[in-house]
């Protein structure tokens, strides 16, 4: 059960080769930029095709190189929040959110939108364009849009990276609440150490397209597997032999 990911991909001289599993929990993909975290998330969502591998959530296989299965992204029912949020600039807040609720019949669709707008504190902003609301409000619109269809899993590509520190902490709490209310697996990319340790049930540390270490934040802090992981978690006090 849970999410199983095994991916291989070679593109423009970069080689990704990763395999990991998580339960119904919050998994953080942690590492420097360019380590292959976004690529992994895009392949889970079906936005990029792996050369080979498996993407499976519970019993459902979304990609299997061997069996020739490749479910298109629009049939994968995952919520995805992009680093730049990717709100549609030509649609109002309400239209952005409704756009995520495609196959829900009408009275239910609008009721859900109104419910989520209220729950996320977006009341009164329904008719504003994304360019007319604040950074924190944009974040919540992006989450509302991704969650309105009640997805089977939530994929988050550094959604808080553009926020100031206090707002970032607030969004962390917000994310914990989402985890609790929706009770779905969440995969979060970050290269912010504080964010990773506060939020992660499992941390998967990426270096150069492969996994250097995976486990709970405590385990990784206590016992980093190599110099690069130690550097990433700011444990430069530990010495590794050559």
């Amino acid at each position, binding site marked *: 059960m849970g999410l199983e990911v095994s991916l291989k991909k070679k593109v423009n001289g970069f080689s990704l080769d990763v395999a990991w599993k998580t339960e119904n929990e919050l998994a953080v993909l942690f590492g420097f930029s360019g380590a292959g975290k976004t690529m992994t998330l*895009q392949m889970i*969502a*079906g*936005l990029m095709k792996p050369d080979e591998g498996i993407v499976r959530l519970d019993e459902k296989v979304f990609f299997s190189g061997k069996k020739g299965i490749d479910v*298109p*992204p*629009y*049939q*994968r*029912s*995952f*919520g*995805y929040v*992009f680093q*730049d949020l*990717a709100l*549609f*600039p*030509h649609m109002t807040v309400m239209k952005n959110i409704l*756009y*995520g609720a*495609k*196959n829900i019949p009408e009275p239910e669709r609008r009721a859900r939108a109104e419910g989520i707008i209220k729950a996320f504190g977006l009341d009164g902003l329904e008719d504003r364009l994304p360019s007319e609301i604040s950074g924190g409000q944009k974040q919540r619109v992006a989450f509302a*849009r*991704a969650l309105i*269809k009640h997805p089977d899993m939530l*994929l988050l590509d550094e959604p808080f990276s553009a926020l100031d520190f206090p707002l970032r902490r607030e969004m962390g709490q917000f994310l914990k609440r989402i985890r609790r209310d929706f009770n779905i697996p969440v995969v979060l990319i970050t290269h912010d150490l504080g964010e990773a340790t506060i939020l992660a049930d499992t941390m998967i540390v990426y270096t150069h397209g492969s996994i250097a270490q995976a486990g709970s934040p405590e385990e990784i802090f206590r016992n980093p597997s190599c110099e690069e992981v130690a550097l990433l978690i700011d444990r430069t006090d530990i010495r590794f032999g050559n």
Partner: protein
Amino acid sequence: MLWDRGFCATCLIAGTIWHVMENSILFSMRLSLQVAAVATIFVVIAGICVAYVLARSDFRGKELVDILFTLPLVLPPTVTGYYLIVLFGRNGLIGKPFYDLTGLTIMFTWYAAALASFVVALPLMIKTTRAAIESVDRNLINASYTLGHNEFETTMSVILPLAKRGIIAGTVLSFARAMGEFGATLMLAGNIPGKTDTMPLAIYSIASSGEWSQAHSMALILTVMSGVFLYLASRFTKRIV
């Protein structure tokens, strides 16, 4: 009495000439607008489709297709016209079977003028629309997919609305180009007064026969119209960048 009669006759002749002149200018203007409008409708449909494929998909020979559709932009219009005769002439590759089947040919009709304008204006539409589609943020398209919308729905709800300004600019430019088309039209539709003489062709005939005042006014009308179109196009293109 005699003077009176002479005056009346002169007035009558002058009036008739003026009337004929006016009519021929009006006819050319109306024909030009009609040809450009019909050509532009087809340019918009075909242009968006071709630009979409060029912007959004990868296939072998893609650049070749791009070059083929861009050629009318740089070829002398007479060469474009020549190819159109080879294709659509009464003995042409497409024109002959069509003539054998229906007994009709588009040569020397206003349809031929519209076809010539279509082919010459199409590259402008493709270039502008392709650039506009390519400039739509990849993440917005991906976001639409992850929100459950397939390729077609994403195109209609996200890609085309966000490329709208480029598409409008391309449409205006294409219309202006179609209005000004001369060489290929001359080859394919001829310059038949009252039938296929669009404004550029009429100006050519009038200037050749030395009727300068009429040439002046027609040239001025065409210049003002084209200037307005360019102004509109630049207003739209500026905002897409």
